[in-house]
Structures are given as C-alpha cells and as structure tokens.
C-alpha cells in the first residue's frame, strides 16, 4: 500500500510496549508511554481509571496546544508543531467525543492527536489492546497515553496515530464521483478492508464517510476507533464492552441506532450500504448527495424504506447493476427487520455456555429481547388457519446453532449475494410485490450472467425486453421459492400469494447465508445441523410484505428463552401489553422494557 506507511516500524513516541502475552489481552493495563521524560514529573504508573472530568472542550485544547512545549509531555510531541487553521490557531476537527489535531514532528512525520472532550469509558483498555495486537493494513496503529496533555491545569489522556495521507470518503467523492473505474477500484478495496477487519476480530462500529480515508492508490484506511469492538476470532466472544455510541445514523441499521451496542457483524450493514452507495454513484454520479451527511440514503430512508424513504430507495436501487440490485433489495428489507443476524442472536442465546458474553454484548436481550426474527415476525394474517401447533415449544427455533462460531462474515454478505444471483435465475419476481417503481427499469434477471459486475453501464433506465413471461411458480425448496410460516414450519406457497420469505439460495453451510436460514426441507429442528457437502440449508430473505410484529398496546407476547417476543395474538401467547409506562411501578402485574419504554403486561 503506497501511502504514508502507518504500519512501518514506528517512532518510539507512539509505539507502546506490547501487552503481556499471557492473560486476556483486553484487560491489559494502560500502556505506559515509552519515554519517561521530565524528571520529577508525577507520572503515575499505569492506572486503572480515567479522570472523571469535566473534560476540557475543544477550545480548551486549542488554548493548550498553542504552546505544545508546555502542554504536552513526551519530548517528540513537545517539539512538534500543531498545524494551524482558523484564526492562525491550532487546527482542530471535532467529533462526538474528541478533538483531533494534526502535529508535524521534527523528524518530518505527521501525527494525529486525539484529545477527549468527554470521558472515553472504554479508552485505556480498548486502545492498549489495539496497540498490542497485529492490525490489518486498513487501520492505522494507535497509541494511548495517560496524562499526556495539560489543559485547564489538569492532565488528560490522548490517543495518537500517524496522520494518514488521503481524503475522507466524502472529499474523495467530491472529486471522483465521475470516475466509475476509480469508484469500482475503491469498492474492491473497501470490501477487502472490511473483510480484513472481520478476520482480525474487529468491528469498527462507525463506518461512514468521515472515518474512511482514501489514499492516492484507492486503498482505504479506517480511522476513529472510539466505537470499535474486539472479538475473539475463535469463539466470537466479545472482548470489549459495547461502545456508548452506535455510529452515524445515516450508515447504521435503524434498530442499532435505537438500541446501541455492537456485535461481531456490526459493520456488515454499513459496509454493504457504503458499497452499494458507491455502486449507485458510479452509475449515476448525481445520486451523491454531497452534503457532508450521507452518500445516497439518509437515516430517514433507512428508517422507513417503503414509506418516506421509498422514493430515495427506488432511485438508489434502480441505479444498481443487476448483481447489486438484489443486494440492494435485501438491504431494503433488512432495514425493516432486526439488525441482528438471527444466527448470532441465537448463538448468544445459548447462554448456558456464554452467559457473560451474552450479558455484556447484548444488554437488551437479557430480559426481553426486542429481537424480531423472521420466524417470530413472519406470521401473516392470511396464514392463521393452521398456525401454532399445540405443544410446540415456544417460538420456533429451527435454526438453532449448536455452537456460536457461525457468525456472518461481511465478505460472505458482499460476495455471497453476487453468487446467489446465479442460483435463482428463475426467481425474477423476487421482490416485485414490494417495489413496483424500481421494477420499471429492471431487466429480466435471466440475463444475470451477462449483467457483468461493473455498475457503470447500469441504472440509466435502459430496459431489455422481456421476451417471455416469468416462469410459473415452482413449489420446490430452491432458490426463488416463496415461503409462508405456518406455526413453526415453513411452507412453500406460490410467490403470487402472500408470503413471508423468499429463498435466496441453497447452500451447504449456514455461514453463507446473509440473513436468515433454516434447514433445507423447512422442517422444525431443535438443533442446528450442517449437511456434509450436500445443499442442506435454505438461505431466505424476509419478504417486505410480511407483517412485522411490534411492541404496542394490545400486542401479544410469548415467553421464550430469548425473553419476550411479539407474536400474533391468534397464536398461543403468554402476555398481552396493556399499557405503556414511564415507570415500571405503574404496572399492575408484570412489566418489560424494550430498550425505550416500559410496557405493562397481563397474562
């Protein structure tokens, strides 16, 4: 990667000593700055807590850095020159909880110095862990230093990293939106980088235009690690507490914005959104909003993709190539569903093995998971005739994995979808019931193979003639088939009818499924099984027409070992919501919390 080599052997001032090899590295003590300086200065040894604050504001740090020789501690930094900006004062950019300065060092290198404007709750542990672990090329090495900067007569920690030469994604798009080949090269880099993160057990947590630096060679480097999560790559177990911020709403699943937290696959949604946005911009440069807030879609669009956001989504999807369009439709549907990929939610709910993981990483799931998995949500009113087999144990969990290692890779999402397209060549009406306007410019999908992978020739509204009507519905467990949930079981129905899910493809391993899956024959199984080489899994995408259950007065809930979850009232249920409450003590009998409100329950 031809850039300012942030991963090269490093100057001493930020290269924190490695964490001890033994013991859980996430609990590594705060890294000590390597160069004890200022004889007699009261440098505390690695300490276990941060100053509580109140933390300085950005202007306090600007004041301090007018005299780096007195404000900073390490010699290399004290000799540095902050780059100047407005009013000839040190240039600073501000983020959610930090002010970032650019320092030119005497050795010719440049450094980003991040000073906190609110208490970084996970700071020392997270950054010490990052400093001690091998990082992928798409990240800049970081150092955490206690007591480095004096502002308001108090010493505060800072995070440093080499200044990454390049442009933020939005600035890059300002000048490159009309160069589809560059954008496509960037898409490739981005996919690779996101997958690298995943392979290193890292979820960035806040992928967005301001945190993605594009270098001269169209490589990407991610910056701003305050929302980052680390995971054990073998067990998937979270090694850091969840961040307090859920990332930029224009790039996150609406439910994650509402509920916070971060999980192993938290970058999948934003990475997919960014990837497809780039594809759309490559095809139609004017789709780029260029407003510094988002690329193509906004939080409002993601929040209501078939209502207020329908027009934006239609334009977005119709700009995509045939390959990408399927992913775009899945993304659209995903917005209306849980942000959690059920396989992992289910893995976490096998909490007899991993109680701490479940409790730490998904706090809302402890009592009443607001998880609306497909199998919980997909009961359409039309299917009530034979639903709810008596005696079936709670909500169906046909896809219960037996171990929690099966988590979803971002690459599987990005690449798997493209591959999936070839498998359901016949399923041309996959989403036709939900997005009529985007279909106007959709060519028949039996030309998928010739659609190619570049998006630049797509989306201009060109329509290839449909030479024959779509094939009749085939009631087989195969890609393109439509499924209705009846009780705990999936039942194939003609796609022209009301259905809850569409089979995206058949595969041998659930890890290849982007969203939901169940055993190929749709049968209920209390344990997950993997076929040995045979196509034994159906990956499905929920149909946008399926009814989404929600917490509301009058809703019925069934108690399950995930907690309470909404079910159609005509099925077996344990509780009904009688009222909402600001205070659980208002409730006469039982109550639950969905992350926002308390709900009173009665049996």
């Amino acid at each position, binding site marked *: 990667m031809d850039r300012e080599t942030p991963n090269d052997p490093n100057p001493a001032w930020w290269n924190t000593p490695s964490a001890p090899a033994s013991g859980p590295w996430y609990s590594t003590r705060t890294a000590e700055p390597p160069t004890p300086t200022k004889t007699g200065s009261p440098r505390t040894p690695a300490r276990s807590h941060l100053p509580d*604050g109140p933390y300085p504001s950005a202007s306090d740090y600007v004041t301090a850095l007018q005299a780096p020789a007195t404000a900073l501690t390490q010699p290399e930094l004290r000799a540095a020159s902050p780059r100047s900006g407005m009013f000839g004062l040190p*240039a600073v950019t501000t983020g959610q909880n930090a002010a970032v300065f650019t320092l030119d060092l005497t050795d010719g290198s440049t450094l980003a110095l991040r000073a906190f404007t609110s208490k970084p709750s996970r700071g020392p542990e997270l950054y010490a862990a990052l400093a001690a672990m091998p990082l992928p090329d798409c990240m800049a090495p970081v150092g955490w230093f206690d007591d480095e900067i004096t502002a308001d007569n108090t010493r505060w920690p800072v995070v440093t990293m080499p200044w990454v030469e390049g442009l933020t994604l939005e600035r890059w798009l300002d000048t490159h939106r009309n160069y589809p080949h560059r954008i496509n090269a960037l898409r490739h880099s981005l996919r690779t980088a996101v997958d690298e993160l995943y392979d290193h057990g890292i979820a960035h947590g806040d992928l967005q235009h301001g945190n993605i630096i594009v270098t001269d060679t169209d490589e990407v480097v991610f910056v701003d690690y305050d929302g980052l999560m680390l995971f054990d790559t073998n067990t998937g177990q979270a090694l850091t507490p969840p961040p307090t911020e859920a990332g930029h709403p224009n790039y996150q699943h609406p439910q994650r914005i509402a509920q916070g937290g971060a999980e192993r696959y938290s970058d999948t949604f934003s990475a997919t959104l960014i990837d497809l946005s780039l594809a759309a911009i490559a095809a139609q440069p004017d789709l780029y909003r260029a407003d510094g807030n988002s690329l193509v879609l906004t939080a409002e669009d993601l929040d209501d993709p078939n209502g207020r956001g329908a027009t934006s989504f239609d334009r977005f999807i119709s700009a995509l190539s045939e390959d990408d369009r399927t992913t775009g439709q899945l993304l659209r549907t995903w917005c209306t569903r849980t942000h959690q990929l059920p396989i992992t939610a289910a893995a976490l709910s096998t909490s007899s093995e991993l109680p701490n993981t479940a409790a730490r990483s998904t706090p809302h799931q402890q009592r009443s998971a607001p998880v609306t998995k497909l199998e919980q949500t997909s009961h359409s009113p039309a299917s009530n005739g034979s639903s709810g087999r008596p005696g079936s144990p709670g909500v169906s969990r046909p896809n219960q994995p037996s171990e929690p290692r099966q988590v979803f890779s971002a690459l599987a999402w990005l690449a798997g979808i493209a591959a999936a397209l070839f498998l359901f060549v016949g399923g041309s009406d996959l989403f036709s019931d939900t997005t009529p306007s985007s279909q106007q410019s959709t060519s028949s999908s039996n030309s998928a193979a010739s659609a190619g992978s570049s998006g630049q020739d797509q989306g201009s509204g060109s329509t290839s003639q449909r030479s024959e009507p779509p094939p009749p519905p085939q009631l087989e467990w195969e890609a393109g088939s439509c499924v209705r949930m009846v009780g705990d079981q999936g039942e194939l129905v003609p796609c022209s009818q009301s259905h809850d899910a569409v089979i995206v493809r058949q595969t041998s391993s659930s890890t290849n499924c982007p969203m939901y899956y169940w055993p190929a024959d749709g049968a209920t199984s209390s344990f997950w099984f993997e076929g040995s080489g045979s196509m034994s899994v159906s990956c499905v995408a929920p149909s946008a027409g399926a009814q989404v259950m929600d917490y509301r007065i009058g809703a019925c809930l069934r108690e399950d070992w995930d907690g309470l979850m909404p079910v159609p009232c005509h099925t077996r249920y344990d509780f009904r919501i009688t009222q909402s409450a600001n205070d659980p003590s208002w409730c006469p009998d039982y109550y639950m919390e969905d992350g926002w409100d308390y709900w009173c329950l009665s049996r």
Partner: protein
Amino acid sequence: MPYQQRIDRANPALVLMVLDQSASMRDNVAGADTGKQYALAEAVNRIVYELVLRCVKNAAEGPRHYYDLGLIGYGPDNPSTGGNAGPAWSGALAGNTLVSSVEVAHNPLRVETYTDAGGASVRTPVWYEPVSGGTTPMGEALHLAGATTASWIERHPHSFPPVIIHVTDGMSTDGDPRVWSERLRQLATSDGNALLLNLSLSTRDEAVQFPADRKQARSKDAKVLFDMSSVLPPFMRAAARAAGLEVPEEGRGFVNNADISQVVTFFQVGTATVHQPAG
C-alpha cells in the same frame, strides 16, 4: 421523543443569546474582581468559538453551517432597532441578529492575545465586547427574541429546537417578563419546544444552580427567573452531570448568582445537544 433531531446542514440549530447590557453590569461578578460585563463577554466569546469548532468536521475545509447564532443585547440605545434591545453582533456582523456559523467564523472582531494565569501568552478570537448602559428592558428583549425565534422556526420547522440563553443581573424595568418567556417556550419545531435558560449574575441572592424547587429561588427577582426557565430535558441534565453537577429531574434551566466558572458551565449545559453535529 423530542430533541432527537440531528444537527446538519439541512437542519441547522439555533442558539440565541439574550444579554443584559444595563448599567449595573459594570458591577463585579460573584467572588471575583471582574466586572460582570467582562465575565459575560468572555463566556460569550468562548461559547461562540466552541460552537464554531463544533462545525469543523474536516481539516481540509472550513466550518459548516450547523448553527445559526443569535446575539440580542438590551439596555443601551440600540442603533439597529431604535429601541433599547436589538442585535448585539459587532464589526462586519453589526446589525444582524442571527448569523450562520460560517459567517461567524469568517468575521471575528479580532484575535486577542492575553496572558493566562501561568504567564503564557494565549490567543483567542473575540466577537463580542463588553457593553453596559441604560435600564433593563427585559420584556422588549424577550419580545425580540420571540419574533426572531418564531421566524427562524418558520424556516426550519424540523430542526433541533431553538435554545435561548438569557443572561441578566437584575429585575426587568418594563413589566413582568414571564408573559414573554411563556410565549417563547411555546414556540416549537417538530422536534420539541424551544428551551429558555436564564442566568442571573445578581450577587444579592444565594447561589443556586438548576433547582427543581422554587423555594430555592429566594428573592422575587430569582423566583421570576425560575418561573421563566424551561425544565431541563434529560440531555441537558446529562451535560450538567458531565460538568460535575447533579441536577434533579425537574431541575430548571436557571442559575442564580453565578461565579465565573458557573457562567461557563451554564453556557455548556445550554448549548448541549443530544447528538453532536453530523460528522
């Protein structure tokens, strides 16, 4: 839930400061030999700079239009309005009540050099100079603030609700200001009601910060300001907590007999938002 709107260029936020410039502002602020007008000017300049910095998201570009910043002063004759309350920006911005954060960033009066407590020479931008003279026509000022806020809301119906920060040191000389404050607090965007916070620099009463109980406001003047103040929404209480203050649930946006550090805290709480401006 109110106060959830993110601040971005499509939905800028309004921070309107209404500043007492009456003659009594020449007195010293609590616990210091600094004139109130100087303490106020320092706090205003600091918070204006802070708000401008919040608009800088990229080292390669200037501040963005995330805020409209308003300054209304009252007391001396105001050349712009012909009354005793009016726009308080000066220099190139004189005559404007509301100015975008971009214009503010481009038009400081000067960058001042001063010597800090440790003897170091420090530079800081200045927009607002101390002013004092005349009576305390609080009603006139709040009326102007209301008109300004209402027309801003017409242009930004879905923005984060306006925040009006009022600083005074005394009693209104043109009638009960609660008439005006009540109207002001009823103005609303789709994201919630405008918020009115009041800071008294009066040194007569007991110091109190963000009280929930009206009894804590001892004097009549203080009770009036208590009544005028919005109940702090949770995000402002959280900002107060981050600044080291526990604010009770029904705590009002009211600080009485503030010393210099409390003035700064008051402005920080008043300019808190749920979300930092978009990144």
